[in-house]
């Protein structure tokens, strides 16, 4: 059966949503102006914690972006038919998440006004430079991918472009993970496993985002999504969440085994205050174990509220995970004098404190708002969403049964 794609109708609800998101973006821009005008001393960041809450949001969104493309890749690269109608939204969400994340990242730079310098002066030894190329390349390739899906004459190329996009997204998340993996100076990083861990994190966060956007748009526009599609995506989310847990476990066990890293491990796992709490309570329990229960417990089978809750919790856990990796790693002091307790009048040798300010949160939320507004405008303007994802359209068994009836 041929899938029909249609735009969503732009009624009052649509315009109200746009207004709300535009308001969030305006507030985020005002917060940015406040921070850039005064300098970073008005934020919670300082010489010890140089990347704060905006970077947590930015990296979270960027990681989720590449993962959101997975749904499309499963269709085009691995040839799974069910995923093909879901692909245009997947590609759109991937682009929107990346733009949202990059907007936050760029506005949190010390000198966002020098973006042109970053785009024209490259140091190819820097993983950051490679990330600039990877991010821009991703936008271009996924843009073309979307075009091949939406434009009939280009349809024949979509599988090839899909393969390029899939490989590119793997390299991209490897690049993002390597920002930390290649850092020898800090105790929490310097681990090759961070790159594949970020890839798996992207699978999980991206799919959770995708599920939420899919459920919300279909609910709000009165379109039908069948259990067949949702159960497939749900099972996939379960596998991804469990995989992230596995990588987190390997990362921490490896660190615990090396005497050099036991200090940071004790800090994160046992006595790190907010970081320990975020790790165990939010990342592991609320963000991983509870979603797994919601996904796999027989009581919640066919339960859409449980699936929605699981996806929200996965995102919450993911945000906590990025916070622990990013801020926790900076809060733990540099080890320059192993075995000694160092003090100074400049906060050396102590666990660094960081209290994010409202302005930093607002900038982070702005990234989410940019993502959502892009998705909303695009699905209203372009034929991206299938008119129906009901079982009778999507489930091959239901289709066969219907044809037999005829």
């Amino acid at each position, binding site marked *: 059966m041929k899938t029909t794609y249609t735009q969503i109708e732009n009624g009052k609800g649509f315009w109200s949503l746009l207004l709300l998101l535009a308001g969030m973006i305006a507030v985020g821009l005002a917060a940015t102006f406040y921070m850039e005008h005064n300098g970073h001393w008005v934020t919670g960041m300082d010489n010890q914690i140089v*990347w704060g809450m905006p970077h947590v949001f930015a990296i979270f969104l960027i990681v989720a972006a590449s993962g959101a493309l997975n749904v499309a890749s499963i269709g085009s690269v691995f040839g799974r038919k069910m995923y093909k109608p879901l692909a245009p939204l997947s590609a759109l969400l991937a682009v929107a998440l990346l733009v949202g994340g990059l907007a936050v990242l760029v506005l949190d730079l*010390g000198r*966002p006004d020098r973006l042109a310098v970053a785009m024209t002066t490259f*140091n190819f*030894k*820097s993983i950051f430079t490679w990330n600039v190329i990877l991010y821009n390349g991703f936008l271009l390739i996924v843009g073309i991918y979307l075009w091949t899906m939406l434009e009939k004459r280009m349809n024949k190329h979509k599988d090839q472009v899909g393969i390029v996009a899939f490989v590119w997204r793997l390299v991209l998340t490897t690049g993002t993970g390597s920002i930390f993996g290649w*850092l020898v100076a800090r105790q929490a990083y310097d681990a090759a496993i961070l790159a594949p861990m970020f890839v798996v994190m992207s699978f999980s966060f991206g799919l959770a985002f995708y599920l939420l956007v899919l459920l919300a748009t279909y609910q709000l526009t009165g379109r039908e999504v069948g259990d067949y599609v949702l159960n497939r995506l749900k099972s996939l989310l379960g596998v991804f969440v469990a995989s992230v847990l596995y990588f987190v476990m390997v990362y921490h066990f490896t660190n615990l085994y090396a005497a050099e890293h036991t200090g940071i491990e004790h800090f994160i796992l046992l006595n790190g205050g907010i970081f320990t709490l975020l790790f165990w309570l939010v990342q592991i329990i609320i963000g991983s174990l509870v979603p797994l229960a919601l996904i796999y417990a027989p009581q919640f089978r066919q339960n859409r509220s449980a699936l929605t809750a699981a996806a929200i919790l996965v995102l919450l856990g993911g945000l906590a995970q990025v916070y622990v990796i990013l801020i926790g790693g900076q809060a733990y002091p540099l080890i*320059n004098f192993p075995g000694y307790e160092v003090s100074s009048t400049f*906060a050396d040798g102590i666990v660094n404190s960081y209290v994010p300010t409202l302005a930093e949160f607002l900038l982070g939320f702005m990234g989410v708002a940019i993502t959502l507004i892009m998705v909303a405008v695009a699905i209203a303007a372009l034929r991206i969403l299938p008119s129906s994802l009901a079982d009778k359209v999507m489930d091959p068994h239901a289709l066969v049964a219907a044809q037999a009836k005829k």
Partner: protein
Amino acid sequence: MTQLALVIDLNVCVGCHACVTSCKEWNTSGVAGPLFDDNPYDANPTGTFFNRVQTFEIGTFPKTETVHFPKSCLHCEDPPCVPVCPTGASYKRREDGIVLVDYDKCIGCKYCSWACPYGAREIDEQQRVMKKCTLCVDRLYDASLPESERKPSCVLACPTQARIYGDIHDADSAASMAIRERGGYQLMPEWGTQPANHYLPRRKTELHIHADELVRSDNPLKKEDIRKGPSREVNLDDWMF
């Protein structure tokens, strides 16, 4: 290649912070300045400082020794902050080995701060670019200064002359001689960054005094065995001292 650097003698550093304040004073007024101050006058000053004194104790209380350890950018020969800079704003000068930041190219991504294992990178929270010790490059080649003052500000300020400045690739420089002859070492050399700055270790100066040095073994009165035990009478010492 010339490699200018500091050699800091931990044996004579008393942790007075003169290097910290003179550095701040010179650099906030010089080409690197102004250096941001958020909270300059309280017990825990925050702001941009190129040079900081860290303190740690060796041993277990009460048998401890305090070590003051002044630390600024170590001008590594293989600096990890340089390759990570996306725009090439961080660079190492070929002519003298000083690691510098081009403020006009710095986008303030702060990734160099993550990469430096010594914590020597400083964000100027007002100018929003990364800064660091320049080894007072604006003094070193300033022909208007007397030659004796063409040195980093901290070197001139140190009251105990704990800071020796020079080219560590020149075997005859005072810095090289100090490293060679007094056991100069690098901070955390295992990172392979080859820090140019070196430290001279603490050296315990012990004075051994034997009992016979406390009495006048050559006392002529004693030699002739005239005096037996302490005497209230006037003796030769009273005449002499």
